[in-house]
């Protein structure tokens, strides 16, 4: 027999290999297929009402008709405010962790705290926001209190992403800067931050997508069932007002209000999902683009 000829044994082995490969492929596909089916079904159900009018009109007849403008606007306010609060703190925390902190117990504790902060259940964040911002600080239920709660919750996203991008700046850049006599802060400001700004932006985008989808943390700190807002009005809310929010609105119309035509909650879900996925796609596209043009 030819030494390289396939034997029954090697053929069986080959078959098993293929079987294993397709088995694992099937498991991966089993995760993705339901997702595609579900989203397809949701878009199908939502299509009768999904148009620009739906986005720009206020809910009418006790939320049984009309659009989602006040909720969409509220979500934009909440997300932007939370980003304004979380971004500076998160970036500075990341600078501390990557540029200043030594390898000691304090740094390890901070890292552990960041991981834990990311793992705290959203409803516990809601209780914290209610106890600390609404009651203790006396802000009251408002956009400000809800944004602060969201900011604390999404802080780990910004810290992690910024820290990664700072760590990607080569050490030689810093050394060159120190060698011409710059101080530590000057180096950070003139060399490290400009070279990692893109990673920070990715972190901000992820924060926005996370904050836009959250419901529990804003339920008791500033989101309300209904608020009258004129069609297309973009300055409808003050920071001390309570507001509607997309996620909260979806919860309300699918559980608390009887007799809403099914297409409306489906369309609201699709708008919320579409917003979050689009923001995420932006961050992924951004990441791919940056990786392709990185200089070092």
């Amino acid at each position, binding site marked *: 027999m030819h030494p390289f000829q396939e034997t029954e044994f090697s053929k069986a082995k080959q078959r098993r290999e293929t079987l294993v490969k397709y088995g694992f492929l099937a498991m991966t596909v089993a995760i993705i297929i339901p997702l595609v089916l579900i989203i397809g079904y949701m878009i199908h159900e939502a299509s009768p009402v999904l148009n620009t009018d739906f986005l720009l009109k206020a809910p009418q007849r006790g939320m049984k008709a009309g659009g989602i403008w006040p909720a969409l606007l509220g979500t934009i306010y909440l997300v932007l405010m939370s980003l304004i609060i979380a971004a500076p703190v998160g970036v500075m925390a990341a600078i501390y962790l990557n540029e200043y902190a030594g390898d000691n117990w304090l740094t390890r504790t*901070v890292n552990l705290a960041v991981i834990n902060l990311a793992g705290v259940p959203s409803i516990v964040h809601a209780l914290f926001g209610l106890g600390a911002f609404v009651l203790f600080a006396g802000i009251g239920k408002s956009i400000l209190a809800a944004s602060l709660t969201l900011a604390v919750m999404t802080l780990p996203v910004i810290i992690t992403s910024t820290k990664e991008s700072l760590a990607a700046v080569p050490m030689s850049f810093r050394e060159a800067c120190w060698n011409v006599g710059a101080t530590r802060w000057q180096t950070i400001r003139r060399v490290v931050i400009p070279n990692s700004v893109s990673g920070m932006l990715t972190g901000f985008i992820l924060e926005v997508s996370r904050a836009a989808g959250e419901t529990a943390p804003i339920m008791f700190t500033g989101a309300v069932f209904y608020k009258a807002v004129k069609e297309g009005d973009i300055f409808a809310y003050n920071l001390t007002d309570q507001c509607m929010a997309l996620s909260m609105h979806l919860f309300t119309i699918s559980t608390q209000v009887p007799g809403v035509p099914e297409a409306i909650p489906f369309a609201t879900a699709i708008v919320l999902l579409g917003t979050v996925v689009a923001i995420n796609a932006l961050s992924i596209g951004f990441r791919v683009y940056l990786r392709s043009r990185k200089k070092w």
Partner: protein
Amino acid sequence: MHTRQKWNRVKEFFIEWLIRICGISAIIFVFGIFFFVFKEGAGFMFTKWDPVQFFTSIEWYPTSVSNKRYGILAIIAGSASVTFFAMLIAIPFSLGAAVFISEFCGPKWKEVLKVIIEFLAAIPSVVWGFIGLMIMNPLIIKIFNAPIGLNVLNGGIILALMSIPIIVSISEDALKAVPDSYREAAVALGVTKWQMIYRVLIPAAKNGLLAGGLLGVGRSIGETMAVLLATGHAVQIPNGPLDSVRTLTATIAAELGETEQGADHWQVLFIIGIFLFSITFVINLIAYLVVKGIRIQAGES
């Protein structure tokens, strides 16, 4: 010294302190969360709270007129059963997907699959809950001929889909961290791919896989909106996957809005919050230590 230089010194001094304060902000917030949630529940905790009844009684009657009882055993059972079911589904599928992505995929498909899994992670929890309520509910009623589709099974499937991304990504990292020399040694011995995965890669990556599973459990226990919408609202110890339950998180979300601020019921809900915080804290701590264990090992080898 020039005034400008002096001014720069002062400025730098302040900025560096600001950075240090922000640096430890995460610690401040974790303590802050514990402190403020504890503060709201403390009044009841130290006067009228009966921990034995709280943890061992299944009687949750917070609004009873004559005899208010706060026993959360049935609610703990609700959280545990939904989480257990979710992990029963999520862990095998996530492991399979992680192995496929890490061992069988070319670099291009790897990237594509990771992006898809990332999208899965981006879907907001209230949308998952909505899917449970509007899509899974009628499906379960139809398939299992159940009286109601909002139950352990529904919540379990939804939570499984929600926790798959985190388990996949951590498991995939763990498999990637196994040195290629292990794979080469296995291939040189003539083993099949399946034998290599089962006997070499999984044992070598077991800490990371464990950490992934733990974080999945943490995520499932803490999830609020999805289970609030998908598990029904029955405070009971479930007999099977088709029974409705109520979880710890859903109890807080559903009842906090309807209680009077500072009342006993309100304070008990904050005590549940502390309990939830403690559980997830411990789970995250263990996962962190397990992952750190891997890093130390990798550093040595």
